[in-house]
């Protein structure tokens, strides 16, 4: 049974990616920013897999797997940083974390 065409998958992927971008740009909590980043990555993953199926080759799926691995390690680091910030009682607001200003 033929499913939806690749266009639909790409549309969902774009929606996911845009949601992520908006989350990163608009939200101020680092936790949510991190979460939005994950959504962006998953949007990209969806596009990769969709193209992989469309072309009938496995490369895209392998890319998606490595993106997942990177995302997992990124979450570990990011969450670790956020926990460290919270434990030092720093305000969890990306607009206030400007110590590295030039």
């Amino acid at each position, binding site marked *: 049974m033929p499913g939806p065409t690749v266009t639909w998958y790409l549309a969902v992927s774009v929606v996911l990616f845009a949601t992520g*971008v908006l989350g*990163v*740009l*608009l939200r*101020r909590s680092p936790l949510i*920013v991190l979460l939005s980043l994950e959504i962006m990555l998953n949007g990209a993953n969806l596009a990769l897999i969709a193209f992989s199926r469309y072309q009938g080759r496995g490369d895209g799926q392998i890319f998606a797997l490595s993106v997942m691995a990177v995302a997992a390690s990124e979450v570990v680091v990011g969450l670790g940083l956020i926990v460290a910030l919270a434990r030092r009682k720093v305000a969890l607001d*990306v*607009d206030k*974390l*400007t*110590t*590295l*200003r*030039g």
Partner: protein
Amino acid sequence: MITTSAWVCLLSPLVACLAIALAGNRISRRGSGYLATGAVALSFAAAVVAFVGLLGEQPDERSHLSTAWTWLGGGSYHSGLSVLVDPLSVFMMLVVSGVGSLIVAYSLGYMDGDDEERRFFAYMALFVFSMLLLVQGGNLLLLLAGWGMVGLSSYLLIGFNQRRPQAIAAAKKAFVMNAFGDATMVLALFLLVQHTGTLDFAATFERAQGLASNHWVVNLVALGLLGGAVAKSAQLPLQTWLPDAMEGPTPVSALIHAATMVTAGVYLIVRAHPLFELAPTVEDLAAGLGAATILLAGLIALVQTDVKRVIAYSTMSQIGYMFLGAGLGSYANGMFHLLTHAFFKALLFLAAGLVIHALAGEQDMRRMGGLRRLMPRTWLAFLVGALALVGVPPFSGFFSKDSILAAALDHGTYGYVLWAAGLGGALLTGLYTFRMLFLVFGGEPSPFVREHHHAHEGKEGPLSMTATVAVLAVLATVGGWIQLAGVWTPVSDWLFPVAEPLVEATGRQEAISSVLAVGLGLLGAAIAWWIYAARRGRVPRLRAVRTLLERKFYFDEAYDLVFYWPAAAISRAWGSLVEGPLVGGAGAGLGQATRGAGRLTARAQTGLLRSYALAIAASLAVLAVVFISVR
């Protein structure tokens, strides 16, 4: 046997120098002095062994070259680390190590109590090694190495008193002047290598014969070597460093700046005489420079007030005689005068050192006087030295100086001019020597002397000092008896295989020169007595002449004007016009620009995470649009 003792002679001072330098506090100050004295005395003993060994051989077989290993090699050029033992080098070895060991022994007493005795004795041993390397080196390259090293040790010893700015300045002046001579010598050696392919004495002299006499190459080589000789021996026009070098301790003045190092120029001319003989013009120039220095230095010595400086100018003047002899081709007479001069000039310096020591370091003759009664034996030694210097028979200077003058008579018209200059020098020698003697020892003790002379009962200095002065006084008396021109000539015969003389004075010329020179010397002494002892005459009031002499014929000023000021001005101009803006400015500008750019870009770094993200997203969007639309 002969070469072994030559190596022992060469290396023993080096070992002593290294031992003192490396032992540091582990040997006492005295111990370092004993070590240095012992090492130089061992050198002397080894030199005597080599001398006796050579005596036992046929005159034309007395030449041994011993090569330790190939020192430098490149292409077809090889230079060995070798010593040459022949009559000339043994002669110099005996003078250097013999007079050297006496003077190092004298330093035991003179330097006693100095904070840095060890450094002093290490430098002294280094000097003796360098000087022996100079005279023993088996090729011109080793000679040059020794040449440079005596310059270095002379620099170190002149500036021994590091807290005296004048001593440092004098050391630098001596070094720079000598470096100038070294440079001309190096250029001469380059030419020699280019045209003969070697620097070994025998081979290079032989191959140089292939070049025509007066060929420009030979002339340039001889001129370059003469430049080195003139600088090292403080002859015109590079003489100005020697009087300043009197800033060094008195034993240093005696050893380096009277007896040995400054006579190295004479040795060089005699050693390289085959080259000089190919360039007669340069030979005449050497003799002329010597004659000019005799008169100039003698005149300046007349107005000096520092006792050591008078002796220094006298040294220049006497080396002028040696240059005169060597330049005329009367090599043995030049070397003989070198020997007797080493005795009596070391004696004069060391006796002056006794006076300076007794007067707590005072060197100004105007504050001395009347020391004859307080230091009778020093007076006697000084008198012996003065008589030998003036050339009064039977003291040693008589035998050596007059033969040089006689040789000048055998050299045509030019020789007569040189002869007259030498005779004028004899008059001046008598005058300044006895002026010094009467100022220091004559008359009543001055207030300064009475105040400062420590009344050692019957003692005029430590044993090591008085004993060496006594030995030198004996040598200055009898040292000349080993040769009397025309009658008894062991020195000339000894040196004949190495340096065959070009001129041979007749008995009549010898007699005329001797009578005139002795007469003029005594006349000078009599004038000095008339003015400075009897006080019946006065020094003529010639203000202009006096100023001219006191400013040493304005040589220092002239060199400042011609060399120093232009060089300094050019340097300053380059510094402010080129180096400042171009080199410094470029660096500073680069730094400034980088910092400015950094400050500008730093402003973009707000630290706001969301603005970074927006920038990335926006640029990505733009890129995406560009890619899609361009395609």
